[in-house]
């Protein structure tokens, strides 16, 4: 079965992640062998993902670390990271849910 370009485009992300089923992957690969447009789209997308993941894209502002560690130092001297010291019990009860297990945002789907 021959698949069209626009179907190949739908699979680009999964192709790059290696999560396509073997059958679809083979069809996509066959298509890529003879379609220079889809090959170029795939290559450029892969290239862009490498560039966007590079550490150099987002540089820290000058003095960022110094300011951060100064603020942390003040915090560390003030409190210890225990779950229920009297001093920060207020903060732990109002708000700091585990960001990872309880997302702030309700699912929108």
């Amino acid at each position, binding site marked *: 079965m021959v698949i069209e370009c626009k179907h190949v485009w739908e699979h680009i*992300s999964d192709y790059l992640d290696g999560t396509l089923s073997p059958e679809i992957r083979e069809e996509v690969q066959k298509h890529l062998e003879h379609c220079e447009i889809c090959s170029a789209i795939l290559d450029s997308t892969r290239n862009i993902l490498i560039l966007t993941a590079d550490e150099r894209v987002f540089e820290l*502002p000058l003095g960022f670390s110094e300011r951060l560690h100064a603020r942390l130092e003040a915090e560390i001297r003030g409190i210890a990271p*225990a779950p229920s010291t009297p001093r920060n019990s207020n903060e732990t009860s109002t708000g700091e849910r585990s960001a990872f297990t309880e997302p702030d945002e309700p699912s929108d789907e």
Partner: protein
Amino acid sequence: MTGISDSTDEAQIIASILAGNTHLFHDLIRPHERSVYAMALSLLHNEADAEDAAQEAFLKAFRNLAKFRGESKFSTWLISITLNEARSRLRSKKTVKMESLDEPPESQGSVTPALLRDWREIPSEALERQEIRALIQQAITDLPLIYREVFLLRDVEELSVNQSAEALGISIASVKVRLHRARIMLQKKLVPQLKRVSPKRRWFSWS
């Protein structure tokens, strides 16, 4: 990112901090400063806000360190805290209401990539040029929020699809759909721009 030995070290440092060696928190977070800031900047668009949000995220991580269970990597946990910090700031800014979590209308259907016949690879060294970095930053921050969030977690911070879904509170299927669209949107925007600024002579020898 962090290998097995690194994460063992990390677990030991965390245990030590919780046992009272709080000054070690400085060392614990040093490798994560850039990624937390990148996440905050991409979501908040503004350097001052991003720096403040990043600091706040680290402080929250410190205050809540006892709740970190080590089931995920520390970096993943930290990025989730940063995401939530940025999200709550976005919510409190009424002006950003326009940029809602709703699906932007134009992207209900499929997203079409930029069509081209050949692609001359742009090497990472190109990122030494401020011009190229600015183009990439802009393209990421211009993504609609729901796509930007997924893209940042998955492709910049390198969380897994499952971790991204959990952090965002959406399904795995949604992560995949949004990630695909985000990647194609970036390809569509960046490819013509990068082709324009890439000096052919310099990179010709690369291929």
